[in-house]
């Protein structure tokens, strides 16, 4: 079964934005050395990393032959441009190459051209939102285990104030009795501030 012409046609039919994306960020299935058979060979060839592309680019006239055989480049770990990355030297997180808006745009474009499976993982992939909804449900933030809601200042101090008020009311009859004995305030010493 020769599927090459169809996929070459598909690759050429892709809009420039998607082609540029795949050139810069070849599908993870290829770079990670996973099942390359999952990806149609000619289609994959047009998106391959430069190291691999040097051997196959002659078959595909659409792809510019990039002659940079750097094995290290191919062997490096794949960095998902849709996910934040941690810089282990500084311990800081770097933002994704593509923001959520551009991720959504690329996913929509890929969906339109039927190549959404070649994209790296992103939360904008179709079905991801539903999956997360199933996992988490309609949970209210702050109600989970170990989560707290800060609340307003009056909410945080309410318990203490009610306790103070309760104690004051418990002591009130005695206080009024003292007040009456001291001449209705004539000998009173403890005035509030």
């Amino acid at each position, binding site marked *: 079964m020769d599927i090459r012409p169809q996929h070459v046609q598909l690759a050429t039919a892709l809009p420039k934005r998607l082609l540029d994306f795949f050139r810069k960020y070849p599908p993870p299935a290829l770079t990670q050395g996973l099942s390359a058979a999952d990806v149609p060979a000619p289609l994959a060839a047009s998106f391959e990393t430069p190291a691999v592309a040097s051997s196959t680019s002659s078959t595909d006239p659409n792809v510019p032959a990039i002659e940079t055989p750097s094995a290290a480049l191919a062997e490096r770990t794949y960095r998902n441009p849709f996910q934040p990355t941690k810089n282990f030297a500084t311990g800081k997180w770097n933002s994704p190459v593509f923001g959520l808006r551009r991720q959504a745009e690329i996913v929509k474009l890929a969906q339109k051209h039927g190549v959404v499976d070649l994209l790296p993982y992103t939360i904008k992939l179709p079905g991801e939102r539903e999956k997360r909804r199933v996992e988490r449900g309609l949970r209210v933030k702050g109600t989970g285990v170990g989560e707290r809601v800060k609340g307003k200042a009056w909410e945080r101090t309410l318990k203490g*104030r009610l306790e*103070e*008020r309760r*104690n*004051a*009311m418990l002591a*009130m009859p005695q*206080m*009024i009795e003292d*007040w009456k004995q001291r001449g*209705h*305030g*004539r000998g*009173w010493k403890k*005035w*509030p*501030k």
Partner: protein
Amino acid sequence: MAKKAKSRTVMVRLLSMAMTGYFRSMMRPRQHRPLSMLKYDPIVRKKVLFLEQKRGGK
């Protein structure tokens, strides 16, 4: 310039001793002793002791 004469009366604040923060403002002669009285506190819905708040600061 001579200082302005102090008024004969002062406004005072009577605090509820139920610690509700509720208060009443009253006027009393400056030379009078501090006010204290039993009044209704709507927050605890009872008659409680109200004492004059110490003035000062300003």
